[in-house]
């Protein structure tokens, strides 16, 4: 019954979305306040209905109602509660419901907090949002309905893929989707602005927090996915340049560019039509990320043939939104008047260069990901584009960008002076040299390029610090004055410093992992020891352990370093009888600077067990840095100036503040 109610609510939401798509748009065109006013209650209604549908699906999972097809296929009574919940989105149909649920949540937020938006703009934004909702709800209802019943219902479900039974991965999709769908806000605002033919500072002020929120969620989502891959897949890599990873990286790169160009659009009125184009691209790549990955087309063009109905609908949705938006852009963008001239050497110029490099980096990922498909489609040779290609194209584009990061915030708007900006970075330059010398002195193994990489990381972290120090007058005015300035410094400035510094920490982690990682592959009998990077690993015993829905082979390994006992590490190999699958569970011991990572393998038939151990230098910094970046996003979001609904109050406060 509840499941049928959910199905009904979803169908009703589709109808509401249709109304919300059409009526307010006509109202905005005719300047009819009555028609425009439908947008708000419709958006709220749509949210409530989709929440009901989502709730019904959740209920079916929680009660293990195996008469529902997706539940039977993806759940099991013995599965822990958290994975019954995450099972909702652990499959194609459910993940689409999560997608529209988040979409309708964003729509409802605009309806609730968008009171100070001009009526026409709000009506158009909500209508565009609704059109996305119509496409997705239609897709769900007609090709991927999660509420289909089974008759007769099986007694037990088939369980969830063990790889998905992991806390980080359980909440990875909601973050990723919050990011993808968050970019739909920037898209809706961009389309509404194109229809209106007007982009002003208030438009950019509205787009920035949504983009920032989406970017933050996407950063967390990608970091979670990478962390999961690191500890689950059993060989300790953190990024594989896999097509599906690339699918989430592309929107992130473009969203990062959008975040920066929207600053110029808001503060200086320049780069407006470019910002609109980025907003379109960011969401288009989110759609590509959501769909092409799901459809399996990235692996083979022929995947469409296995489920033509879904494939064709997906293709239609992509063509309609991306193609339609670009046509609208080509037609309307010339109407947007460019303002705010600036010299190449200025904050605007630096942000433009940032955009250029990020766009080229996104292009590298895009071309590399889709090129095999493209060659295959035109009948060319079958090729593979793997990590070496991305390392050779992506890295050369990122390095100059990273070099410029600390410089940008120190340049002035309109036209700037390079000498003054570099003088403020003297401290950071010293830090770079010190770090490089330390690295060269301490790390005798590994490539010398690693010293340059660590120097770059230090440049970013120290650059962020000295930029803040300069704003606070840390070494030039009395400490009390610095403290006073710190309290009045906008949150967005703190957020930016955190994000840029966090990026430096990520870079350090990646350099450490790439340059200094040490590996040991060996087979040990009980009682035998092996050495890795100063650690002595002794296999004490191997036993079995019973988990809630799996049984695990556990290796008990004693770890010593320089005679000091560091305790036991327990890598596991879990077997899931319901799903008939195995999963390695690495044992990871971190000291903040490096991870000791141990995986246990099979018995080699001669009484010895295969062990793989790594010393992963600076590995934890990759995710720590990503979390700092995301935290910077959150801190920025709390800035009063971006707070939705507070621009009037914020403006009066701003006037009392020194100019940025």
């Amino acid at each position, binding site marked *: 019954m509840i499941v049928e109610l959910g199905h009904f609510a979803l169908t009703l939401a589709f109808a509401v979305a249709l109304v919300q798509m059409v009526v307010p748009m006509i109202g905005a065109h005719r300047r009819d306040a009555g028609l425009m006013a439908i947008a708000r209650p419709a958006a709220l209604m749509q949210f409530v209905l989709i929440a009901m549908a989502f709730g019904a699906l959740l209920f079916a999972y929680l009660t293990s109602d195996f008469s529902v097809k997706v539940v039977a296929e993806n759940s099991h009574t013995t599965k822990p509660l958290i994975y019954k919940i995450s099972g909702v989105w652990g499959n194609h149909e459910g993940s689409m419901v999560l997608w529209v649920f988040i979409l309708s949540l964003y729509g409802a937020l605009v309806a609730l907090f968008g009171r100070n938006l001009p009526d026409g703009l709000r009506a158009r934004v909500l209508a565009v949002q609704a059109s996305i909702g119509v496409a997705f709800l239609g897709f769900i209802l007609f090709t991927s309905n999660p509420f289909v019943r089974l008759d007769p219902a099986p007694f037990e479900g088939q369980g969830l*893929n063990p*790889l998905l039974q992991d806390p980080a*991965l359980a909440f990875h999709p909601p973050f990723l989707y919050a990011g993808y769908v968050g970019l739909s806000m920037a898209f809706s605002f961009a389309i509404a602005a194109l229809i209106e033919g007007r982009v002003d500072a208030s438009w950019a002020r509205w787009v920035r927090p949504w983009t920032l929120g989406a970017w933050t969620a996407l950063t967390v989502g990608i970091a979670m996915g990478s962390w999961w891959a690191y500890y689950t897949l*059993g060989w300790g890599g953190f990024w*594989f340049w896999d097509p*599906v990873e690339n699918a989430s990286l592309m929107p992130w790169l473009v969203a990062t560019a959008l975040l920066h160009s929207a600053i110029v659009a808001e503060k200086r009125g320049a780069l407006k039509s470019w910002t609109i184009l980025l907003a379109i691209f960011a969401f288009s790549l989110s759609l590509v990320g959501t769909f092409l990955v799901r459809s399996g087309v990235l692996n083979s063009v022929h995947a469409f043939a296995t489920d033509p109905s879904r494939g064709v609908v997906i293709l239609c949705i992509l063509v309609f939104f991306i193609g339609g938006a670009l046509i609208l852009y080509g037609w309307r963008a010339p109407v947007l008047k460019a303002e705010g001239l600036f010299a190449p050497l200025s904050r605007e110029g630096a942000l433009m260069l940032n955009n*250029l490099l990020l766009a080229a980096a996104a292009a590298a990922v895009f071309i590399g990901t889709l090129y095999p498909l493209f060659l295959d489609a035109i009948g060319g040779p079958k090729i593979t584009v793997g990590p070496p290609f991305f390392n050779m194209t992506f890295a050369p584009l990122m390095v100059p960008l990273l070099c410029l990061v600390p410089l940008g915030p120190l340049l002035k708007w309109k036209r700037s002076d390079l000498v003054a900006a570099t003088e403020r970075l003297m401290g950071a330059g010293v830090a770079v040299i010190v770090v490089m010398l330390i690295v060269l002195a301490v790390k005798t193994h590994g490539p010398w390029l690693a010293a340059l990489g660590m120097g770059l990381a230090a440049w970013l972290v120290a650059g962020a610090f000295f930029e803040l120090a300069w704003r606070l007058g840390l070494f030039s005015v009395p400490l009390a004055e610095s403290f006073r300035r710190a309290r009045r410094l906008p949150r967005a400035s703190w957020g930016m410093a955190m994000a840029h510094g966090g990026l430096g920490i990520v870079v350090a982690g990646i350099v450490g992992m790439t340059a200094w990682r040490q590996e040991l*592959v060996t087979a040990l009998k009980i009682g035998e020891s092996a050495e890795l990077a100063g650690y002595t690993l002794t296999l004490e015993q191997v036993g079995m352990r019973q988990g809630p829905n799996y049984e695990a082979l556990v290796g008990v390994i004693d770890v010593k370093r320089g005679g000091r006992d560091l305790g036991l590490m327990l890598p596991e190999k879990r077997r899931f009888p319901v799903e008939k699958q195995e999963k*390695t569970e690495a044992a990871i011991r971190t000291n903040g600077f490096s991870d000791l990572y141990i995986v246990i*393998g099979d018995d080699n038939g001669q009484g010895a067990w295969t062990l793989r151990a790594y010393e992963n230098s600076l590995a934890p910094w990759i995710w720590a840095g990503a979390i700092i970046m995301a935290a910077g996003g959150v801190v920025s979001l709390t800035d009063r100036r971006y707070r939705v609904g507070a621009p009037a109050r914020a403006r009066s406060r701003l006037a009392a503040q020194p100019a940025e």
Partner: protein
Amino acid sequence: MRALILSLMLLLAAGAALAVEPSEQLKDPVLEGRARDISRELRCLVCQNQSIDDSNADLAKDLRRIVRERLVAGDTNEQAIDYIVARYGQFVLLKPPFEPATWLLWFGPFAVLLAGAGIAVAVFRRGRSGVAPSLDADEQARLDRLLGRAE
């Protein structure tokens, strides 16, 4: 990300054994190091986007063995890779070859960068030769005042 998981599932469904097995390794650390380097450049053909160094599929195991045999037989890295490509095709290379069919791939990202830079330069040129930026009311008033004083 979900599809990543599905693709990785294919790998793990085969059993959670490890990639390079101790029994496969060569005694000579230099040769073994070269074998690992080569392994990272070659694709496991039956897996999704995995190098033979990372994969535990039987085919990957065979390829790792062949690479080591070629190295022991005295092949250079290039010769060993060519040996595999001759038998399994270019699809096996994780780094696509540089040839007319892949020019667009290799030059594409940098072409995007150059095109973008070209547009940016054009915009700056036009900005410089075109009309001066319009002044806002404050700036205009200040200019008038200055000019008034000068006259």
